[in-house]
């Protein structure tokens, strides 16, 4: 009961504005794909096109092997959960759950409908609510009913349109977990639209990032986080704003990043940064790309602490370099750091993101041939997991 979904050069215009341009995207059967992007980026348009609620101007949309461009939503065998749940206000929970079963042309015996509803209600913890009306339910309960209504028909493709955005923070984390469990249990293809990167990173098998109607990157959460394809992705994904610096890598006298008459020392590592030395670059720095080091470390530059923030087990240290570049990094909370401290920092080579300042595209580094490459994923994976937890 699962199928693939494919977009081939799909374009959608509203008036003269292009909401989606030439989208190519393939979702394999059973995948959980998040469409992530700021509002107006085209992710909801993509979902609407797939659901059949919007008609494409160009290109083809396939569900399985079938081109569905001229098939209405009712013929696409999909299920969808809407942002505001779209529960039928004049029907009880039971009737809402029964609706997809009764709406399909073929009549099902009422006993079958009842047993299916009982099963779904049980799975979602709804049995006591079946005879209530939507307005008598809490937000979380409504959310569950909406999910249940989508599940009840066991569709091949599940579409979820920001389903958690109306819930409070804690409930959201729990539902995230539940949805993921649900996916594991039913194995349907799921397309999930969100503007919340934590949701996307924590649940998806792959993420498609959209901006201004264009697909920016389509890859696994790990790839997205650690190898953002361009400045937009690098900036959009991550716990807090990424710092971008214009400059160039220099290897003389030691490996460093030259920027604003300052040399930010880079500690030795597994990456071949020397390969791009000299050319103008845009450097993207997240917190994990800066490390506090002892003053006598081989690579270090002085900074002054300007502000500190407690973030759970860690503290975030904001520090200013000699020329006033404001960096930030994360250190365990037990380190005694106070405002005004003069410390030393270094850049972590594996966590640096380099971009072409003209195109904004990521610059790929040739890997070093030695075995140190093994260390990289582990460290990055830690950082990624960390980021997910913190953005929640």
């Amino acid at each position: 009961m699962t199928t693939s979904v494919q977009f081939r050069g799909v374009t959608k215009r509203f008036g003269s504005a292009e909401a989606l341009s030439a989208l190519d995207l393939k979702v394999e059967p059973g995948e959980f794909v998040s469409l992530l992007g700021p509002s107006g980026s085209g992710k909801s348009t993509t979902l609407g096109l797939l659901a059949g609620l919007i008609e494409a101007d160009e290109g083809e949309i396939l569900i399985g092997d079938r081109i569905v461009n001229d098939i209405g939503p009712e013929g696409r065998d999909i299920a969808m959960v809407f942002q505001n749940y779209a529960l039928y206000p004049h029907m009880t929970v039971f009737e809402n759950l029964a609706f997809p079963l009764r709406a399909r042309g073929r009549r099902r015996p009422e006993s079958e409908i009842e047993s299916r509803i009982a099963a779904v209600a049980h799975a979602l913890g709804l049995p006591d609510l079946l005879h209530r009306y939507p307005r008598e339910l809490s937000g979380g309960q409504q959310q569950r009913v909406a999910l249940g209504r989508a599940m009840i028909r066991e569709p091949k493709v599940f579409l979820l349109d920001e389903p958690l955005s109306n819930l409070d923070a804690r409930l959201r984390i729990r539902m995230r977990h539940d949805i993921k469990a649900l996916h594991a249990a039913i194995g349907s293809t799921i397309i999930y639209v969100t503007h919340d990167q934590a949701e996307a990173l924590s649940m998806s098998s792959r993420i498609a990032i959209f901006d201004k109607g264009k697909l920016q990157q389509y890859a696994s959460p790990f790839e997205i986080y650690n190898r953002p394809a361009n400045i937009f992705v690098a900036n959009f994904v991550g716990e807090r704003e990424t710092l971008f610096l214009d400059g160039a890598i220099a290897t003389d006298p030691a490996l460093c990043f030259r920027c604003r008459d300052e040399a930010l020392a880079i500690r030795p590592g597994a990456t071949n940064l020397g390969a791009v030395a000299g050319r103008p670059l845009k450097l993207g720095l997240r917190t994990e790309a800066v490390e506090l080091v002892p003053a006598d470390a081989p690579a270090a530059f002085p900074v002054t602490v300007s502000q500190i923030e407690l973030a759970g087990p860690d503290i975030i240290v904001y520090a200013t370099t000699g020329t006033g570049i404001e960096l930030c990094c994360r250190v365990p909370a037990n380190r005694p750091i106070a405002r005004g401290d003069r410390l030393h920092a270094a850049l972590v080579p594996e966590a640096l993101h380099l971009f072409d300042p003209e195109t904004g595209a990521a610059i790929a580094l040739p890997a070093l041939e030695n075995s140190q490459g093994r260390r990289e994923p582990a460290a990055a994976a830690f950082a990624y997991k960390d980021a997910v937890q913190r953005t929640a």
Partner: protein
Amino acid sequence: MRPDSPGKAAIPLWKRRQRMRALVRRAINLAIALVALFPILWGLSTSFKTTPELATFPPTLLPAHPTLEHYALLFRTGIERYMLNSVFLSAATVIGCLAFGSLAAYAMARVKFRGGNTLLLVIVALMSIPLPSLLVPTFTFLAQLGLLDSLTGLALLYIAYQLPIAVWVLYGYFLTIPIELEHAARVDGYSRFATLRKVILPLSGPGLVAAGLFVVTFAWNDFVVAVAMTSSDAVRTLPVAIYGYLGFYGREWGPLTASAILSTIPVIVVFIVFQRFFLGGMTSGGVKS
């Protein structure tokens, strides 16, 4: 329909179906418009026919020798004066209805006062009183007030007839305006009246337009009341002048259709210009409330 014809083959089947559907929709929309407009288009065509052509049988669909003689006649006989009367009357009615209507609607929507709910129900009841049954008594009463055969009297009648619907629409609309805005204004020291004027009314564009259009449709087109309540030429309104072409010794189709077309154009223009607001005002106001 050779499959190998290059232009056709390049367009995928789903796209052709999509286009077909869009075309069919447009055709249906056109058909709706045609059914609605056909009699009026016939009137338009008739207004350009020469008098002899008007009397021919079977009638021609389009004028054989289009002429402006009927329109010229209308302006020779001073139709612009009747138009002016109608414009004035419509404006007075709309202004009166919106001014009195928004006052009353505001009080009913936002102030708790004894009798308020009853008044609301009375308004709904008043909206449904059939006018023709009131004509004779109104005539005698208006004569006693000395308001017969005057634009003032007619305007007051129109306002009284249309106020309930204006209040109804505005009341619904005011209810949709967040009350927090008003609390803010009142905390800032605005009186009830100032709140209405400075906060509520500026936010009520669509509601005012919807109410105004209902009112203007009536005031611009009414001839039943106007024919009964006025007699002198100085206060003759356009619909009464049109009605006059249904003369005692036969209808004069030429001037009749020409004046009807003249009177129709302004309403249509106003409605097309304000259509969006109208529906908006109705949507969030009058019906949903």
